[in-house]
């Protein structure tokens, strides 16, 4: 059992090495100046420096906080609303227009309004993040709830299950695979949401660091470091959701 993870690690490292080599070849072959596309070693040096000085962690921690709280708030609300939408056609008819309309307005446009209404700061950033993850999770939940097997539903009814029991014992477990699909999408969106929120309401964070590196310090390697940190955070959270899914959801 210890050979498979080892082999996977080797595969991952090998593909990462190949990626870095391709990147280096790209910079050399196209002759792109380092302030447009820095070579991997420049980004690596910048990464070491910003990790050592603690700058990277300070900003990453702020973004992580926004992501965790924003995703938590957004996902919890979305699942609750999604259950309502799934169970009741009336609720769906009434709420759908507002939900879809809110989704159609780009978050980048809504974010400054939220920032003003909620006085800037962490809460408005969490709200922006929650808003961006809401829709895919709510819709996934709704679809999942509705996908509950009609035959099983009849079986539960024959046992006298209350609507609440049907939700808890049939609809939610049936919906879990689809809900987790929505959560996977949502968690990667939450990274975008956190960055958008930071661009609007400033403070500390990897989105802010990107701006400062790009327009304040003209330090393109540092900008890439921030981007890479965001990518790693996104991957990590995605992996976390997939891990939880493997624990909670039985394969069909």
């Amino acid at each position, binding site marked *: 059992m210890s050979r498979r993870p080892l082999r996977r690690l080797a595969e991952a490292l090998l593909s990462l090495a190949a990626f870095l080599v391709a990147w280096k070849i790209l910079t050399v072959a196209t002759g792109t100046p380092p302030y447009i596309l820095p070579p991997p070693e420049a980004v690596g040096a910048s990464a070491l420096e910003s990790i050592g000085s603690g700058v990277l962690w300070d900003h990453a921690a702020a973004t992580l906080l926004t992501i965790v709280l924003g995703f938590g708030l957004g996902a919890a609300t979305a699942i609750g609303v999604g259950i309502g939408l799934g169970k009741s056609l009336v609720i769906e008819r009434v709420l759908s227009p507002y939900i879809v309309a809110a989704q159609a307005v780009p978050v980048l446009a809504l974010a400054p309004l939220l920032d003003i209404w909620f006085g800037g700061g962490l809460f408005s950033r969490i709200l922006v993040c929650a808003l961006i993850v809401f829709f895919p999770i709510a819709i996934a939940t709704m679809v999942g709830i509705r996908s509950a097997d009609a*035959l*099983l539903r009849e*079986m539960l009814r*024959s046992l*006298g299950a209350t609507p609440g*029991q049907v939700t808890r*014992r049939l609809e939610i*477990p049936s919906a879990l695979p689809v809900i987790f699909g929505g959560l996977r999408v949502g968690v990667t969106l939450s990274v975008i949401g956190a960055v958008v929120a930071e661009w609007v309401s400033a403070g500390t964070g990897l989105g802010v660091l990107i701006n400062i590196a790009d327009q304040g310090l003209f330090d393109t390697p540092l900008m890439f470091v921030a981007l890479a940190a965001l990518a790693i955070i996104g991957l990590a959270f995605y992996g976390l959701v997939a891990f939880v899914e493997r624990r909670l*959801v*039985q394969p069909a």
Partner: protein
Amino acid sequence: MAAGSAQATSGVRTDAGLAVRLSAVRHVFTGPQGELVALDGLDLAVSAGSFTAIIGPNGCGKSTLLRLVAGLLIPTAGSVTLGDGAEAAPPRAGDGRTGLAFQQPRLLPWLTTLDNVALPLALDGVPPAARTARARLALERVGIAGAAGLRPRELSGGMAQRAGLARAMVTDPPLLLLDEPFSALDALTREAFDAELQRLWMERRRTVLLVTHSVSEAIRLADRIVVMTARPGAVASVLQVDLARPRPVQLTEPAAAEIDRAVRATLAEVHPPELAPWSGEAAS
């Protein structure tokens, strides 16, 4: 009617179970395509503790009939009651008086077999220790005690169907409704299961309504066979089965052959286009 028409050999409790009565039952389904009259003018009395088979081809309304008795549907007209005399009342799903087993196992895929069988008890709020014990007992009775920790996808078709049966019986209901429980299994397994069902029923008498489209299964198991008409369904005729129990899988008595012929004749009479032989004239 007369209770205990079946003569058993030993160790039997008679008169357990609920009587069932359907009077002038009419049931209509309304849908986007318009109205469908599934049953009309159906009268049926089932005595407590008896084993009744209901037979007819698909579409005759026998599943609808079962659901009315299970309390899953309320008749458009007429009445359905369970029990005798002062205790007679319309059926209500989940009141513990009825156990229902389906053609498919209908097990929740994310629960173990044990938890699936214990489900009716969990819904009723029975504490975990008690319901685990009773579920294990039910699994033993249907012979799959070893499957307790398995998930439904790990069970064979026959084992899953037995689990469904165990679930129907875990609350020890006085009325058992079986909707073609073995028709999805192969014929050999079906015969074996029929024998087991007979054994279970003889251990502990309860009222059983078995919907089937197998004439031989009906004769193997039932005290009475109810033949249904084509849609809209009603009772075409009721045939008594006075054969001794326990009945073997292959019934060679002449009386059995006679009942078989009579049932088929009635079936051919009320469902001519489908059940008439291809060569030769159709029954009128």
